[in-house]
């Protein structure tokens, strides 16, 4: 009986996964192109002005909410702070293309796996991990979107980009899927980490 239940759960999970639309669905034949880092838009563009986001980390039905603040401190450095709504500091990160400094992280979260997760997520969102120039597979898709696939040492990064406004709609990166629905208001970025014990992070723009 237990085996039957287990098989049913696995079968359902596989079915659900196969039904989820692929990041390539509706796209034509891909051709090889040479691109620069600037050809891939950033999900979040850090500027000299302070930008604020609502951040929710969900893990096993628990939700941890805070305010994420991002500001470019100089041409190479981006600072990211996360505070609880109550005002307490939760995280303080400094990012450059080649470095990630943890100035502060709540004790409960200060584990190598969590630090790595934040590092990879922020690098992905800020577009800091790509080399200056690289070779990619590119194809046109339905709904005026294009598909770009890049092989890096860390794995494969696949993007679905809206060609009208040059906004990223979806990313499939090593360990994480990112979704940014075009017409969400406020603009909402959902990072679903793959794996049984991985959190989902939802970031919403605030005025």
């Amino acid at each position, binding site marked *: 009986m237990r085996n039957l239940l287990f098989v049913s759960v696995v079968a359902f999970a596989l079915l659900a996964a196969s039904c989820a639309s692929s990041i390539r669905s509706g796209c034509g034949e891909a051709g090889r192109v040479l691109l620069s880092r600037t050809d891939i838009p950033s999900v979040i563009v850090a500027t000299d002005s*302070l930008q*604020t986001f*609502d951040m*929710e980390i969900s893990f096993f039905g*628990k*939700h*941890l*909410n805070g*305010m994420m*603040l991002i*500001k470019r401190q100089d041409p190479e450095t981006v*600072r990211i*702070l996360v*505070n609880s*709504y*109550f*005002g*307490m*500091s939760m995280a*303080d990160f400094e990012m450059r293309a080649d470095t990630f400094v943890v*100035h*502060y992280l709540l*004790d409960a979260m200060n584990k190598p796996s969590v630090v790595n997760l934040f590092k990879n997520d922020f690098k992905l969102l800020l577009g800091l991990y790509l080399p200056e120039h690289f070779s990619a597979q590119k194809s046109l898709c339905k709904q005026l979107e294009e598909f770009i696939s890049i092989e890096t040492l860390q794995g494969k990064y696949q993007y679905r980009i809206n060609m009208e406004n040059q906004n990223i709609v979806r990313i499939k990166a090593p360990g994480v899927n990112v979704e940014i629905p075009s017409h969400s208001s406020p603009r909402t970025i959902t990072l679903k980490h793959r794996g049984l014990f991985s959190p989902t992070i939802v970031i919403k723009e*605030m*005025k």
Partner: protein
Amino acid sequence: MFKITTILYFFSLSFLLFGQEMQPITNVTDFERELKEVAGKIESVESNFRQEKFMKVFSDKMVSTGMFYYRKPNKISLQYDKPMQYAITINGDKLQTLTGGKKTTVNLGSNKMMGQMKGLIEASMIGNISALDKEYELHYFQSASEYFVRILPKSQSVKAYIKEIGITFDKKTMGVKQLRMTENSDDYTDYIFTNSQYNTLQSDEKFAIR
């Protein structure tokens, strides 16, 4: 000359720190008794609050506003309306956050440090500092219109999150006007309370944790 400059500098810093006119309270016992008497009469508080989180690294502050509710015993709720709807409620040993319809409930009873933090926040927000145990060092100051209490945690586990708390009391009403929570990183959060109404809450509706 150097000595004079140093002394002047030191005094100017103290001046700024204590709102230009704060002096140490000499008769602490009377002050504590008066505060205890007033806090003892408070069954509930509801007030508007403005929260200003100052971040040294950005030289900027984040402002939030909302309503603050307190009801005896052990019930506190901060209900934010700006920059977004969010609520944090402490009811007895439970803490619940609510945002976008999603609730997360944490049991504080099982965690000694969280229990200490809860006691500290509760005591600070209604001015019931006599409820604080020997885990804190208290310093008292006054001006013509205000009292100021500086609370320094002794426990290393609390110190990891809060360096000190400063509470400003209105001398006439003995109500808490402002609370400053300074973190170890020298960032601080001010909570400014206005339109405070005492003993007006008749039910626990604002503190329901489901």
